[in-house]
């Protein structure tokens, strides 16, 4: 069978064929050789630059070094927020290979609890590739080293030695200072700076940390290192140190701030203290609060849940965003308006326990008999103010209120302020589309009705009355500030009112227990009790459920003769002003005699169950146990308790 077309092939022909075909093969081989040489020349000469670049970017890894954040210091140079050296471990989701295994290994090495593992897994799921996920911070050297030596088996794990934000006074500065945190995906989209996604880099998320972000953040350092394909650093090529952020000096006295926070104890409330000479805010605290250290480290689910569920709203800054009816604390202010309106302070009013206006009877909290202006302030007689306010009209009072800083938004480096309402005839038209009525005057004259203020405003009001100057609240300490201009109020009127406020504490007044336990220094003040619900629940004292209790307020200044400090205290649902003025008394005492004030506080804290952090830890443990139990009941592992818990009781428990 032939396939070759019948040609006869001899050995000689075959030899010839071989030679010819071998030459062909040699030629083919040579041309492949030329092709290879050409290809190589193309890659290494024509494309040399490109590949050199790629090779360099393989070899060299530019790591940014997060800058140390500028400190926040108080007026005496004590740290409000500083940085502590920190060993931390982060995950770079992009570079991870076996996520579950890596997380499991880390959990073992760092003994993370289940909640932490859940958080990490959740964040890993949500994180876009470039965002680092924090595993743990504040590690000791041993755990840090344990992770570091296993790096080759843990791709995507980034252990670092860096700095983390530290707030020495913890919860005491929570609302004011805010906290720092990892930049969000939105932040990065807005400003795609690689430093934002560098592990350990935090930006201010709230409060002063957020407002002063630009000045506090500093300039990142950089390190160029040679790395292997597996991410092992071979050597450092060069580095540029970071430039730490600028320190910012605040007007606060951090010791006073902490004292005030601690003194509030288990109550929900606010203390604001101002310097009457300059307007410097010496303390502005709102409790209960959150520990900014927890937030800055990435807060746990449970802890956040506890803060969110607490009816004492630890997440809201009551000093700036809590609005309360100022109640009787505005009576000295109203008195100033009356004096300017031509009312003779010696004119008396008879208080039979209230006043009939139109067809409604407005109660006074007591039957005061014959009262003049001074006695009306000392005894906080509502009837006097009902009557006198009706005589001069409310707009004159509203004008005075604004002059003293109520209803105003201050120029402060804070994220937001709620500035409340100073009602008047125009406001009611605009807001409620009706005419101002006499009962509005009556209600507003004693700081009820539409009147709403935040605790800082009440403090500014007290400070302006005490100093007679148009003080502006300040948080940022400035050295040479011009003195505030005097108020457009007669000095005689002011001294009369200060005298009346001294009477409240030192004479026959409503806050005699607020007298300072000091020689030579007298406190002047005014109590206030703001109703929360109508009187059918009783007077809103301590015998009704917490959320129906009256707010307790107190504004004050000291010393009476030459005012130096002004303060306001608001206790939410404190059950009346008696909850507020002891706090004011002790905070004021602290300014003059720290030892005496501390002694008192330590004794009180013992009865409350420890310091703020001890109580918060206990609360967290209780909350966690409670959640565990609820979960167990929901999953049917545990039988529900026999007697159903009273909702109000359990609400009160959380507040303890």
């Amino acid at each position, binding site marked *: 069978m032939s396939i*070759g*077309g019948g040609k006869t092939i001899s050995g000689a022909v075959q030899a010839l064929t071989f030679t010819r075909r071998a030459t062909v*093969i040699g030629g083919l081989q040579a041309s492949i050789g030329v092709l290879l040489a050409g290809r190589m020349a193309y890659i290494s000469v024509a494309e040399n630059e490109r590949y050199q670049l790629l090779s360099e970017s393989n070899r060299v890894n530019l790591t940014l070094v997060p800058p140390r954040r500028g400190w926040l210091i108080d007026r005496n140079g004590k740290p409000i927020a500083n940085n502590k050296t920190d060993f931390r471990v982060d995950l770079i989701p992009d570079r991870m290979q076996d996520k579950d295994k890596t997380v499991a290994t880390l959990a073992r090495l760092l003994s993370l609890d289940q909640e932490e593992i859940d958080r990490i897994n959740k964040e890993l799921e949500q994180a876009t590739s470039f965002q680092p996920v924090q595993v743990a911070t504040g590690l000791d050297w041993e755990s840090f080293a344990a992770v570091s030596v296993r790096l080759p088996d843990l791709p995507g794990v980034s252990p670092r030695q860096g700095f983390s934000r530290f707030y020495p006074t913890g919860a005491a500065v929570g609302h004011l200072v805010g906290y720092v945190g990892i930049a969000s995906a939105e932040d990065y989209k807005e400003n795609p700076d690689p430093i934002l996604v560098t592990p350990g880099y935090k930006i201010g998320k709230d409060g002063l940390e957020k407002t002063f972000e630009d000045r506090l953040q500093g300039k990142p350092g950089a390190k160029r290192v040679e790395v292997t394909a597996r991410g092992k650093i071979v050597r450092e090529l060069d580095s540029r140190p970071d430039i730490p952020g600028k320190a910012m000096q605040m007007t606060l006295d951090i010791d006073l701030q902490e004292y005030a926070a601690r003194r509030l104890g288990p109550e929900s409330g606010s203390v604001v203290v101002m310097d009457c000479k300059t307007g410097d805010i010496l303390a502005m605290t709102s409790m209960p609060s959150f520990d900014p250290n927890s937030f800055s480290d990435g807060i746990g689910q449970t802890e956040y849940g506890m803060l969110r569920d607490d009816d004492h709203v630890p997440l809201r800054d009551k000093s700036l965003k809590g609005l309360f009816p100022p109640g009787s604390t505005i009576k000295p202010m109203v008195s100033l308006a009356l004096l300017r309106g031509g009312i003779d302070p010696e004119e008396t009013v008879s208080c039979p326990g209230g006043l009939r206006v139109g067809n409604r009877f407005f109660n006074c909290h007591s039957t005061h008999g014959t009262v003049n202006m001074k006695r009306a302030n000392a005894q906080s007689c509502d009837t006097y103010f009902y009557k006198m306010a009706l005589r001069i009209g409310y707009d004159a009072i509203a004008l005075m209120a604004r002059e003293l800083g109520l209803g105003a938004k201050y120029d402060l480096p804070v994220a937001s302020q709620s500035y409340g309402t100073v009602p008047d005839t125009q406001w009611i038209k605009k807001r409620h589309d009706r005419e101002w009525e006499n009962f509005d005057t009556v209600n507003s004259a004693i700081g009820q009705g539409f009147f709403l203020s935040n605790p800082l405003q009440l403090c500014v009001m007290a400070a302006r009355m005490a100093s007679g100057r148009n003080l502006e609240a300040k948080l940022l300490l400035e050295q040479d500030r011009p003195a505030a201009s005097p108020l457009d109020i007669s000095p005689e009127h002011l001294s009369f009112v200060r005298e009346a406020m001294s009477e409240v504490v030192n004479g026959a007044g409503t806050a005699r227990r607020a007298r300072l336990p000091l020689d030579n220094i007298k406190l002047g003040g005014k109590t206030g009790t703001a109703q929360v619900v109508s009187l059918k629940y009783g007077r809103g004292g301590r015998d009704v459920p917490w959320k129906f209790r009256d707010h307790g307020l107190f504004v004050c200044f000291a010393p009476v003769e030459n005012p130096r400090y002004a303060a306001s205290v608001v206790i939410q649902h404190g059950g009346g002003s008696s909850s507020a003025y002891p706090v004011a008394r002790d905070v004021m005492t602290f300014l003059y005699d720290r030892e005496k004030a501390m002694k008192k506080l330590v004794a009180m804290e013992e009865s409350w169950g420890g310091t703020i952090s001890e109580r918060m830890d206990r609360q967290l443990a209780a909350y966690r146990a409670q959640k565990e139990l609820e979960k167990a009941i929901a999953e049917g592992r545990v039988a529900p308790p026999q007697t159903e818990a009273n909702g109000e009781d359990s609400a009160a428990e959380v507040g303890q």
Partner: protein
Amino acid sequence: MNDFIPAPIAQLPWKTILLLLVMAGFGFVVLYSAAGGSVTPWAGLHMVRFMVFLGMAIVFSRLKENFWKAIAFPVYIVVVIMLLGVELIGAVGGGSQRWLNLGFIRIQPSELMKPAIILAVARFYDLLPAGQIRTWGAIWPLLMLLAFPCALILLQPDLGTTITVLAGAMTVAFLAGLPMRLFIGGAAAIAVITPIAFFFGLEDYQQRRVTTFLNPENDPLGAGYHISQSKIAIGSGGIFGKGFLNGTQSHLDYLPEGHTDFVFATMAEEWGLMGGVAVLFGFFLLFRWGLGVAMRAKTRFSQLAAAGLSTTIFFYVAINLMMVMGLAPVVGIPLPFLSHGGSSMMTIMICIGILMAIDRHPGRRGGTFG
């Protein structure tokens, strides 16, 4: 030759040995650098192996043509049995299996098949009467000779070696004088079958290698990683290279398999285009010698065997270099004399040894045909 040198030594093909020594020596230098400036673990072993296999090749060079003719088929059968053995052990052990552990040495029978198939096919066309070269009788035995080893190696699975074995045999058949139209038709058939084979015949990982080769930048961290990093190594070397021991791609582990399949990239990064051209020139001298041996050979078996063996080495070089330069998919074929690896070096030195034997005993014209 000098009288002081004994005749047996003077008769050795010194030019060829020198060329091999230079190339393996360069391999030593490159592997020394690949290990970060260390003789261990690769460079030293590489040189020891080379010297051992060079000794083996010199021994082979003393053996005459008749010996190689005589063992051509028996060796082929033994290697097929070894391939079968690998398959059976693999079936028992599970997974892909290429090694046969004989206790004292681990052999890769698919490597041995490369010279074995050349000898067998050469011997077949040597035996085939000249008049039958254009008949079916010249084709079906070739197909039979190829069928067993190719099927067994494909089963391993080892596409690269299968192609080398197939190509070696085809080269011998081509040189033996099978009608040209078969090869042209075959090439056309391959052009048609390739896409079909790609989609239905290749394993998933083989398919990925091919698609990656076509566009390595698509998946620079996955399957395209090898090719991308290899090209970066070669490209960043430039004309004169980064200098001995200064390669970063290899030393920082970016280049995978920098001491075996991608040794050329390791070399090129440090020695640049100059080093690459030198290596190509070395191979050029080797293949010129190899084909020269075939041309000078006087008997048909010698001619076919020499050309086939030379071409087998050529396939190693060509496929490997095309692979590292991104002209061919990653198929796992080492570069002769430079790559670290015992099995392939043994195969290449067997080919060299037989080539030296044919060079030494070109035979007498017509001796076999008579």
